[in-house]
């Protein structure tokens, strides 16, 4: 079981969701986050004083999938979230020990479906 954490452009969220729907990924968690990487912040001016905000608005999408689906999901996210410009974001993969569906107490891969 793998947790896929993708930090992406907010404007690409709809595209990524559509791509995951096509793959039949059942659940996801979406969080508004601030972040920085190679993409520089935007400069703001208030009464001529310069302020540089390094942290930019991003969206973090978390999906937990069976090991066998991981590559397909990562590829789908990477394709759907890409613009080719700096600031497209990153994807992280983390091993997950177990999962529990609270309603039925099912565990493991069956809890993900």
């Amino acid at each position, binding site marked *: 079981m793998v947790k896929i954490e993708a930090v992406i452009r907010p404007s690409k969220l709809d595209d990524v969701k559509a791509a995951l729907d096509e793959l039949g990924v059942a659940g996801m968690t979406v969080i508004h986050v601030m972040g920085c990487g190679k993409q520089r912040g935007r400069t*703001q*001016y*208030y*009464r*001529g*004083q*310069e*302020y*540089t*905000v390094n942290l930019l608005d991003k969206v973090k999408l978390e999906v937990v999938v069976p090991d066998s689906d991981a590559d397909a999901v990562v590829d789908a996210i990477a394709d759907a979230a890409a613009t080719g410009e700096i600031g497209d974001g990153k994807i992280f993969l983390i091993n997950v020990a177990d999962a529990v569906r609270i309603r039925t107490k099912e565990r493991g891969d069956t809890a993900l479906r």
Partner: protein
Amino acid sequence: MIVAALMVLSEVSVYAQDLESVSSGDTAWVLASAALVMLMTPGLGLFYAGMVRRKNALATMLQSFIMVAIIGVQWVVFGYSLAFGPGNWFIGGLSWIGLRGVGQGPGPYSETVPHLAFMIYQAMFAIITPALITGAFAERMRFRSFLIFMVLWATIVYDPVAHWVWAKDGWLFKLGALDFAGGTVVHICSGVAALCCALMMGKRKGFGREEIMPHSIWMTVLGAAILWFGWFGFNAGSALGSNGLAASAFVTTNSAASAGALSWLAVEWLHRGKPTALGAASGAVAGLVAITPASGFVSPMAALAIGAVVGVLCYLAIMLKSRFGYDDSLDVFGVHGVGGTWGAIATGLFASTAINAVGAEGLLFGGGTLMLKQLAAVCAVFVYSFVVTGILLKLVGFVSPLRVAREDEEIGLDLSQHGEVAYNL
């Protein structure tokens, strides 16, 4: 108790022969103007609250709003008497305390308007002047100390300065310095006091290290719009009549505000590459400040020039501020001190007796002495306001600490001083 006693003491002075000279048109305009100027103070609250961080939005709004209440009491109990009552060259006496003798008939400042109408119109000026200062110590002053300081400042700084410039026995009035609607009394006086506050109270926590940014520019723009609207009462109302001079002041006011907004926007666009909403709002206010002393003495074309110059001047002043490194948080000195000073000088340049026979000829119309009188008034108010504000801050500091505790500043004044927050979003 004291107020109740004064009420009993005060006599209602209504004389039939007085009332005959009261003009309904003039009275209507002055009362409407008083209401317009009243709205400026909460408008200023919005203007300032938008420029602070969200954790200080309510406290900043309240610092303006509560002035309507505090000075609303101070003025009728003794402030009006000290500012406009018969006295000496420096300050009015106590003969009008509790509005004794201030009645429905005309007073010494207006033949066609009830004395009470003139009094309440002037109250609104006394209210907004201390409120203007609050931008200098935004986000860090203890509310209790703030209240004590403001009552003292209104009484010991504003009331005498208003007396100097506007009362019949005031020394600047007798000298012949011109201030139609309060450029010196309101804007220079508060702007210089603000500079003193910023220097004595020190910088906000994190100033220069953290990014301290405005939390809601649309609120500031709305506040500026309300100020602009109210300013018609401030300037055109100062004609104290529903007449041609009021119309002239109305037009110069709007012209200068427009030119100020455009010139600030232009200089900012050239300097930083982007025109901002905060810049347009700041420029309009700077234009309004600058035209205030001149509004009843200059032509509309002169008003355009006054506004165009002040937008650039105030922008440069705020640029310089960052060189000096003091934390006049919302640029009260940069806008009101600098803009008010330019307005006083511009009055000495552009005033014309063709606009207002009671005025004088400015430098451009061959009058030389007016400029000297204007400079004397500016210097006198600079020194008096700066020195006395400093002394008052020291005194208040002995009784009650001026600043909130560090951790209270960290969590914000809304929660630490008032136990509430502006936004539950």
